[in-house]
């Protein structure tokens, strides 16, 4: 019986059907009943072990997803920017470092996605990316403690590499290993995971505000030694632990041995630059160029604004409302919650009103956010402005996607979606430092005014002109 089972296993591993295996073994002289019994045993065990493996993988992904959400909550970008300021960085340096982070993330995400699509990436590499990202938080906390700007900058830049590699490769691993229909518990995390992020954001803010210095007593050789641990160190340690454990768990995912092309890393770099050069076709089409330009300016306003909104709220309302970090957390929790509702509303309204009107509406709503910080900076109006700004950004983003599909010719469409984030990010190398300089010299409130006006003066007319030209073409 064992010989027959061995033959059946070999047949299944060679992807032969049960019927074909039965035929083959019967022709070899084995008894039909024995063959059928052996097939039932092996398939049963195989199925059981496959189900156990899939369940195990799903549980690991669920744990990873949960830990990631906790980690992103404790290590929110707003908290990082405020800590960077507290480490002694000026507003210009904060803007420049965030510019490097954003541009690096955009360039890397395209490369990593293409690389993973065509090459086998070991799950250990994915795990190491997560662990590296986690360690960056420890470095940031140390940099804050010793007031070291170079160390903080290093941690932020390496963290950007880590988070992009980890994120893109994790998505691909999930797609390859776990089919959609097997993601029961994982779907629950996707649907309700926001509650975890919100709770952790608030908990992190509480720890930042209320645990400024935590005395920890240790017995060393019979003497009581007291270490003063700052609250931010605890919070970032928690973020680091979450990502490190998450990366470690990923390295135990059981995956099928799929052998993809084994190109060298450097040949992939060459292929990447050839792909990037193909993206230049976008700038040859006036329509695509207009969309890319408007998208780039919109993106600049969002990215530059998000560098400084948290810092402004923290500095201006330190002794008001919930105080310090908690004010920042409350405002951005509202933003998170409003970002949930918007996609549903946008799709329905885009069908009713049209894509161009919704795109323009979204852009105007986006402009309200920075203008509120200038004209009426109090907690209530800032909260309302932030909600409108986030809703506007989501509306504009979704409508732009629909529009690109409708108005761009088929050959440009794919390039637009592939290369959009790359092409819009490269100009940030010039525009973001300029914006950071304005914020540093003239004050954050002036920067927010400039951002609001930029949207209304540069982006809105472009969309308006495209809309009028498309309407004239239709008539």
């Amino acid at each position, binding site marked *: 019986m064992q010989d027959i089972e061995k033959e059946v296993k070999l047949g299944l591993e060679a992807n032969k059907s049960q019927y074909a295996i039965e035929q083959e073994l019967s022709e070899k002289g084995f008894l039909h009943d024995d063959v059928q019994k052996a097939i039932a045993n092996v398939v049963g065990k195989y199925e059981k072990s496959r189900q156990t493996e899939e369940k195990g993988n799903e549980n690991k992904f669920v744990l990873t997803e949960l830990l990631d959400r906790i980690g992103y909550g404790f290590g929110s970008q707003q908290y990082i920017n405020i800590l960077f300021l*507290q*480490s*002694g960085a000026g507003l210009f340096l904060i803007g420049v470092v965030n510019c490097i982070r954003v541009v690096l993330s955009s360039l890397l995400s395209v490369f990593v996605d293409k690389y993973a699509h065509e090459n086998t990436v070991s799950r250990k590499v994915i795990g190491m990316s997560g662990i590296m990202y986690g360690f960056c938080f420890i470095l940031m906390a140390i940099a804050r403690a010793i*007031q070291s700007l170079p160390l903080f900058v290093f941690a932020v830049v390496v963290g950007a590499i880590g988070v992009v590699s980890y994120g893109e490769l994790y998505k691909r691993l999930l797609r390859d290993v776990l089919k959609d229909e097997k993601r029961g518990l994982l779907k629950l995390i996707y649907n309700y995971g926001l509650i975890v992020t919100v709770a952790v954001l608030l908990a992190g803010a509480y720890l930042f505000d209320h645990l400024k210095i935590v005395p920890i007593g240790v017995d060393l050789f019979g003497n009581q030694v007291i270490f003063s641990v700052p609250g931010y160190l605890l919070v970032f340690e928690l973020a680091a632990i979450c990502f490190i454990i998450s990366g470690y768990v990923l390295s135990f995912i059981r995956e099928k041995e799929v052998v993809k092309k084994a190109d060298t890393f450097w040949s992939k770099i060459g292929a990447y630059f050839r792909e990037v050069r193909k993206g230049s076709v976008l700038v040859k089409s006036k329509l695509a160029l207009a969309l890319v330009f408007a998208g780039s300016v919109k993106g600049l306003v969002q990215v530059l604004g998000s560098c400084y909104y948290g810092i*402004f709220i923290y*500095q*201006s*309302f*330190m*002794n*008001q409302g919930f105080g310090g970090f908690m004010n920042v957390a409350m405002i951005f929790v509202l933003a998170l919650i409003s970002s949930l509702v918007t996609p549903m509303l946008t799709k329905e309204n885009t069908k009713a*009103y*049209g894509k*161009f*009107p*919704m795109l*323009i*509406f979204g852009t*105007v*709503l986006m*402009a*309200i956010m920075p*203008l*509120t910080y200038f*004209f*009426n*900076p*109090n*907690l*209530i*109006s800032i909260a*309302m*402005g932030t909600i*409108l700004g986030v809703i*506007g950004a989501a509306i504009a983003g979704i409508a732009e996607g629909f529009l690109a599909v409708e108005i761009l010719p088929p050959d440009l469409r794919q390039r637009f979606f592939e290369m959009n984030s790359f092409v819009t990010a490269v100009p940030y190398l010039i525009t973001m430092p300029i914006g950071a300089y304005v914020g540093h010299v003239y*004050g*954050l*409130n002036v920067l927010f005014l400039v951002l609001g006006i930029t949207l209304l003066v540069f982006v809105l007319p472009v969309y*308006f002109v495209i*809309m*009028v030209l498309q*309407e004239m073409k239709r008539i």
Partner: protein
Amino acid sequence: MIGKGFAKRGVGLMHNRKGVSPLIATILLISFAVALGAVVMNVGKTIGGLDSPTCSALGLEILTVGDKQRICFAEKGEKSYVEFTLQNGAKTIIDDLHVSIIGNDVFNIDKVLTEPLGIAAGRRVRIEYNGAVGNVEQVIIIPVVESDGEFVLCDNSKLIVENIGRC
């Protein structure tokens, strides 16, 4: 014949389902967004906001980097000075400061700022004082705001700083 024409037009009108043109939809949506913006720009203004600056709404402080306040003094005889970095809150423009530098003697000065300190703005201020003060033990900074055409000293919002290091 005429009746038939009217009838046809009537039926045509009932089956004419043209919606709002994109241009009109855009104008309507922009108007709605502007109205929302106007509401947001005016919410909370009356809650100790910009229209009625009072001393209680101030948020003036000495900038702290790490755990150190950015204030120091340099004892150089007649050219001694105190230097500090101020950070204003988000509610009120501060028109001026009244500063008292206390050591062996007391040095008072009004009209410190060449221009008002804006909302959420920061500024480095240097005040020269005479050598009679000697070692600086305390600095008191009282913000001055304009209210109804008069300049008011906000004594309740004053900053008192001690243990000042040398520059």
